[in-house]
């Protein structure tokens, strides 16, 4: 074989994969430049003018879909209350009817009416006349019906967590809270609600706050106010175990309705999607100005105005659907906000194109700097001290506790392992150990690798290699620079390669022992797959990684956490 052929093959086998983070950075800047070009250009008609000359729009359908998505998951992963008498009807209910208000309760805030049977919800919104959505949480599907135009839209939701039953979730919320040691209850006394005396309770938990009012005579709950993050959700006019016609919850398209289908990925929303939504809200619905707010409650309050504006504009069906999808993704960014701490919006009254006006900023996860979006929709990375305004007093960054020396003989930390499955049937393991404590004056740290056949290759602290010596089968002593540890960086990086054939199997499942290098208080395993490998992940990754295991050691540091599957399978 010619050497050029070998090298050619090497080039063709070379692969590189960009993360969502890299794509987002490159695309956001390119798209922002495209936007600048488009706004400044007079040679081509902008979206605004295209929209103005288009035909009729029914924004309602898109809005109902948005609401279904935004509120369908309202109680997922949150907390609840504990006063047995008041919550008993909820715990034992098979069906329910309730009204939901998002944000402050006033005449301008729309009321959502939910009828719930099992995993299905029939939802109507009082400021969107003639539209109804049937949400089936079991199949992650929404059927949105618009009576006026006889249109039916199926929306298949991708990326939904498993939600067996909506009402059961509410029950779980209460049960979980009752079991939580951090749960507190405070009596609020009695007040009149809808003409009847009600007894109030305030349930507090570090992650949530719920106020429940129950009828003073019957004990039935009449109103629940739940604060989740920055969103206040009020449930009122509650009725339980009301007989309801099954036909109201049918997922079949009624006769005479036209049928459309669309898909929505709930966890695919990016900063670029959010920015695109800002553009649409300013350019199409705001006469060139950004909205007063970008929270879910702000959107709820503006639906009617947007609907009216949409009807005046007129859009072809395809553009209407595209617009609806873009608005969904815009809102999902806020609804499932994944940044650190709070987001800040200051776009009220700002004109689209004002390049000097910061309108929104937030800190992406694991980032030291903030992303600041300006009125012309360009984005800059800004250090916290250079933000347009000081952070809110309660928006405190997580404090990193440095390395401490103590009288005990053990080194203690936390560990995160990143396994990259490589093409040649090996995994490259990078174990990040955050050192928390160690014995006073001792700089030689013993570590034990999970597989003696996979030797330690390197140890780094703050990107600098550390010396280590093998002391036995799979055991090593690492020399720690104590002065450096005391000064700040405490994250050690260990690397080794392990052959997949050395790992235990259970049927087709490749497993690994969950064993930390030193005693740890928490341990996590993340797995990614090289595109050239013959394996694929069995679950949708977050960025590059899936997390087969994450766990803590509440009773004290340990080195073993059992075993688990790697969440990979032969590529199909």
């Amino acid at each position, binding site marked *: 074989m010619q*050497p050029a052929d*070998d*090298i050619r*093959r*090497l*080039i*063709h*086998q*070379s*692969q*590189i*994969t*960009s*993360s969502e*983070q*890299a*794509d987002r*950075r*490159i*695309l956001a*800047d*390119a*798209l922002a*430049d*495209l*936007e600048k*070009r488009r706004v400044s*250009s007079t040679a*081509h008609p*902008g*979206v605004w003018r295209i929209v103005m000359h288009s035909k009729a729009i029914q924004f309602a359908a898109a809005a109902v879909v948005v609401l279904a998505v935004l509120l369908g998951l309202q109680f997922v992963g949150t907390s609840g209350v504990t006063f047995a008498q008041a919550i008993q009807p909820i715990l034992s209910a098979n069906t329910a009817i309730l009204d939901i208000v998002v944000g402050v309760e006033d005449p301008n805030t729309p009321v959502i009416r939910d009828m719930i049977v099992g995993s299905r919800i029939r939802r109507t919104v009082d400021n969107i006349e003639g539209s109804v959505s049937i949400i089936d949480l079991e199949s992650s599907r929404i059927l949105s019906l618009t009576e006026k135009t006889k249109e039916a839209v199926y929306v298949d939701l991708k990326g939904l967590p498993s939600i067996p039953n909506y009402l059961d979730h509410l029950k779980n919320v209460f049960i979980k809270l009752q079991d939580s040691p951090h749960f507190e209850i405070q009596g609020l006394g009695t007040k009149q609600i809808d003409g009847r005396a009600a007894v109030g309770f305030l349930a507090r938990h570090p992650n949530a706050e719920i106020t429940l009012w129950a009828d003073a005579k019957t004990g039935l709950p009449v109103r629940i106010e739940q604060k989740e993050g920055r969103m206040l959700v009020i449930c009122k006019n509650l009725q339980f175990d009301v007989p309801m016609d099954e036909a109201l919850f049918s997922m079949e398209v009624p006769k005479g309705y036209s049928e459309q289908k669309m898909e929505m990925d709930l966890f695919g929303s990016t900063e670029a999607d959010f920015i*695109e939504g800002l553009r649409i809200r300013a350019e199409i619905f705001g006469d060139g100005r950004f909205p007063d707010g970008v929270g879910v409650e702000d959107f709820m309050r503006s639906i009617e105005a947007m609907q009216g504006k949409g009807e005046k504009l007129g859009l072809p069906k395809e553009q209407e659907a595209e617009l609806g999808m873009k608005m969904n993704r815009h809102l999902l960014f806020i609804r499932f906000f994944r940044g650190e701490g709070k987001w800040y919006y200051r776009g009220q009254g700002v004109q689209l194109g004002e390049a000097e006006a910061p309108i929104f900023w937030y800190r992406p996860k*694991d980032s030291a700097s903030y992303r600041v979006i300006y009125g012309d929709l360009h984005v800059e990375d800004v250090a916290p001290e250079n933000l347009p305004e000081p952070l809110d007093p309660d928006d405190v960054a997580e404090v990193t506790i440095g390395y401490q020396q103590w009288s005990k003989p053990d080194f203690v930390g936390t560990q*995160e392992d*990143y396994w*990259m499955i*490589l*093409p*040649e049937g090996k995994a490259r393991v*990078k174990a*990040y150990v955050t050192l928390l404590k160690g014995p006073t004056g001792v700089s030689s740290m013993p570590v034990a690798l999970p597989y003696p056949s996979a030797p330690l*290759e*390197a*140890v*780094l602290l703050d*990107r*600098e*290699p*550390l*010396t*280590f*010596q093998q002391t036995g089968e799979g055991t090593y002593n690492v020399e720690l620079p104590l002065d450096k540890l005391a000064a700040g960086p405490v994250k050690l*990086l260990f690397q080794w390669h392990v052959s997949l054939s050395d790992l235990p199997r259970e049927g087709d499942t490749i497993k690994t022992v969950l064993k930390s290098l030193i005693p740890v208080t928490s341990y996590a395993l*993340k797995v990614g797959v*090289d*595109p*050239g490998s013959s394996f694929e992940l069995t679950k949708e990754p977050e*960025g*590059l*990684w899936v997390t087969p295991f994450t766990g803590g050691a509440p009773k004290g540091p340990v080195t073993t956490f059992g075993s688990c599957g790697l969440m990979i399978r032969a590529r199909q």
Partner: protein
Amino acid sequence: MIEDKLLVFQSKRGSREALTRIYEKYKRDLLLLAMGLLNDKTAAEDVVHDVFLSFVRNLDHFRLTGSLKGYLLTCTANHARNWNKAERVRGSAGRVGSAHRFPSNGEQEGGHSPPCEGAGRALVEEPLETLVCNEQLELLSNALAGLPFEQRQIVMLHEHGRMTFHAIARSMQISTNTAKSRYRYGIDKLRVTLNGEVTKCNQQTT
């Protein structure tokens, strides 16, 4: 080809979807080329970033006469060359090597001596690294780093970008014969540098 023309036309009209599609379609090719030329993940990402921005900024005057992929690859090679020149200037001013560069054989992160005997390669990426390269690319990048930039550029454009020597020569403003001879020198040096590693690597993956 027709799709690319349409995408360029739509991008000129301000279509975000079209520009996104162009990026999605060619990002891997461009990143791989940049990585091969620079052996530095951060720099590779920066170069592709700059290429795309430059592409958008020049859209008004851009006319697609040949292959869009070829055009973007040439832009990437040119940006990489500029970056390389700037890096050499920075390097001569005492800058320590980039943190994201793959260490060559026996070389450790930041030029430090090996941590201990038999420690093998150092590791450099953060847990949530923005670019992930497979081991073949690591091997290739390390080997290419030993060639003069002009030879690297021609080897990668010809082998990875499938560009003809004529097209490469035109883009680099050199003669076709010069392009061919630089390619030959490059391949010969690669063969010496890799010294059996390629065959070993190929055997592992076949």
